[in-house]
């Protein structure tokens, strides 16, 4: 028999090794599906790697895709730190996209437009996240369920906009009007799609790390999450911390939507997010809720997504493999996390 035994201390190298272990386990587990599809496992992973990280252009494409997941990953990490179960990053992202598209379509000088887009998008995301937080604080409504249901509400609201008032009357396509050219985020490297928003995302991660680890609000967020009773006893207004956390988390998720509008699509369509909000949960868990870890975790998932499409073209393995990899990575990471708190000890049969 085996049993789990509480660890008294966690070795430091675990912090780095666990996510890598989880990722390795995921790739091994998912190779079964590649084999099932009748393709070579190493060859398929090889194509994925080359197509996502193989040359400088591929790397920029992967970074462009990682940017929204850095934001949603940070959003989830911040929320989960306070045990505010924000599963609504997807809806908050969509709200941010819509708001920034609305602002970006107004003619004004470029830098001003980008700034206002960011503010509007963050505010919209924060406003959406405020709903589950308020419902939890005021009415004790489970935040998981309400934030999940809101995703559907926001999605249909977006669809109503692009099928209704925003619908392209010329082509009849359900897409919003494009933002002003001047509001398009500048491209940093000629010939790639690497836009300003990607750099903002990369800068956001250390800023949020600083906020969580070094500021009073960050301290309150952590204490509220770790032990709300102790937090309350220590004079922390837990309800207010939850609301602040929700606003911060929603704003970050909203910025993910801003980047997609300003830097990638320049308008809003129904599939503007292929589930970046949910991927944020995977990213945050792989990062062990550490804002700095969010960056490599998001890049990993982005590489999987970018690579899966190329793999699908080259080997015929359905690109949905990337979704399976995401789910498996999340579950593998959870199991890996178990080993930070517990060790497996063999116990004798006499026990």
């Amino acid at each position: 028999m085996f049993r789990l035994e509480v660890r008294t201390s966690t070795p430091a190298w675990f912090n780095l090794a666990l996510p890598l272990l989880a990722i390795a386990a995921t790739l091994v587990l998912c190779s079964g599906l590649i084999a099932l599809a009748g393709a070579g496992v190493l060859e398929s992973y090889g194509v994925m790697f080359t197509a996502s990280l193989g040359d400088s252009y591929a790397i920029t494409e992967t970074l462009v895709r990682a940017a929204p997941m850095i934001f949603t990953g940070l959003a989830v990490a911040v929320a989960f730190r306070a045990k505010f179960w924000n599963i609504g990053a997807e809806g908050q992202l969509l709200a941010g996209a819509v708001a920034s598209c609305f602002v970006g379509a107004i003619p004004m000088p470029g830098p001003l437009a980008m700034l206002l887009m960011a503010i509007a998008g963050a505010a919209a995301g924060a406003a959406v996240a405020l709903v589950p937080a308020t419902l939890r604080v005021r009415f004790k409504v489970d935040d998981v369920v309400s934030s999940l249901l809101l995703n559907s509400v926001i999605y249909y609201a977006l669809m109503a906009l692009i099928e209704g008032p925003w619908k392209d009357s010329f082509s009849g396509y359900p897409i919003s009007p494009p933002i002003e050219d001047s509001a398009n985020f500048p491209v940093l490297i000629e010939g790639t799609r690497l836009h300003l928003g990607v750099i903002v995302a990369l800068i956001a991660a250390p800023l949020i790390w600083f906020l969580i680890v070094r500021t009073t609000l960050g301290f309150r967020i952590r204490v509220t999450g770790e032990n709300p009773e102790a937090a309350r006893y220590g004079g922390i207004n837990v309800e207010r911390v939850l609301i602040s956390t929700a606003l911060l988390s929603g704003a970050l998720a909203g910025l993910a939507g801003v980047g997609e509008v300003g830097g990638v699509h320049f308008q809003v369509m129904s599939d503007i997010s292929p589930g970046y909000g949910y991927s944020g949960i995977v990213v945050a868990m792989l990062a062990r809720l550490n804002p700095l870890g969010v960056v490599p975790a998001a890049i990993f998932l982005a590489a999987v997504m970018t690579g899966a499409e190329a793999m699908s073209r080259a080997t015929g393995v359905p690109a949905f493999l990337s979704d399976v990899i995401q789910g498996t990575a999340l579950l593998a990471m959870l199991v890996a996390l178990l080993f930070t708190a517990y060790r497996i000890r063999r116990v004798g049969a006499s026990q």
Partner: protein
Amino acid sequence: MSAVFEQIFQVGFLAAIIRIATPLAFATLGEMFSERAGVLNLGIEGIMLLSAMTGFTATSLSGSLWLGVLAAVLTGMLMGALHALFTVALGLSQHVCGIGVTLFSSGLAYFLYRLIFGQQSVPPSIKGFQTVPIPILSDIPVLGPAVFNQFALVYMAIIAIPLAAFVLYRTPWGLSVRMVGENPRAADSAGVSVIATRFQAVILGGALMGLAGAFLSMAQFNAFTFGVVSGRGWVAIALVVFGRWDPWRSAGAALLFAFVDALQLRMQASGLGHIPYETFLMLPFIFTIVAMAVMSRNAVAPSALLKPFRREER
């Protein structure tokens, strides 16, 4: 007013409510069993999707509808067991594991579907369940044709509600489920295996979620599309809260939601042309959130919900 009244009590409208309520009733009862044992199953959305896929595929390949249902139920049980392995045996976070199970099973559903059927411009379809009138009962005016001229799976759902109540409140196993959900320590002292009971409840819940998925792809749509579940699993989780973790109330909540959804469909069809139809699609979700806010004041969740149980940590 009387015109609205007439609309609502049309046979077609009542039948629509029943059909919308059926997968929700299965899913809600499934989630209820799981939560009554102390395990939140956020995997429900993905489990329903994967079951809808396996049920559809099994029927499509074998030509047998009931083989499809069996495949869907087994899929649900398997994914339930997976969720239980993570949350019950290993004691990991129920929230995050559930999302993991949903991501994993929806990814797998799409992956396998594409692998089996390839990319087709027109999605393959099956000849799904047909309505079976029940003699005599189906002759009752209005109610008869709406309720007693339905798919076999609808009748199963109608039977499942009292059966679930009986199992939960009148059988020793139901007592064990309620005990491990309320007070696992006491249940353990009384000789009930917390781990085994929770596993069984989550697996039973998965079977019911599988039936919900089977209904969607094999009776309602007769095809597997990416939007086949579209949030119904999440709604079921809310309906459990709304139904206060009771089989009868949960089924009632499913009916109420189905009523709002059917009404929304009528409003879409009734020529309120200038309003985009998505506005109406939002209504059931908003309704559910508002209803939860109203009901949550006196809703009492099983006390051990979300709390893992480890015997050695007394």
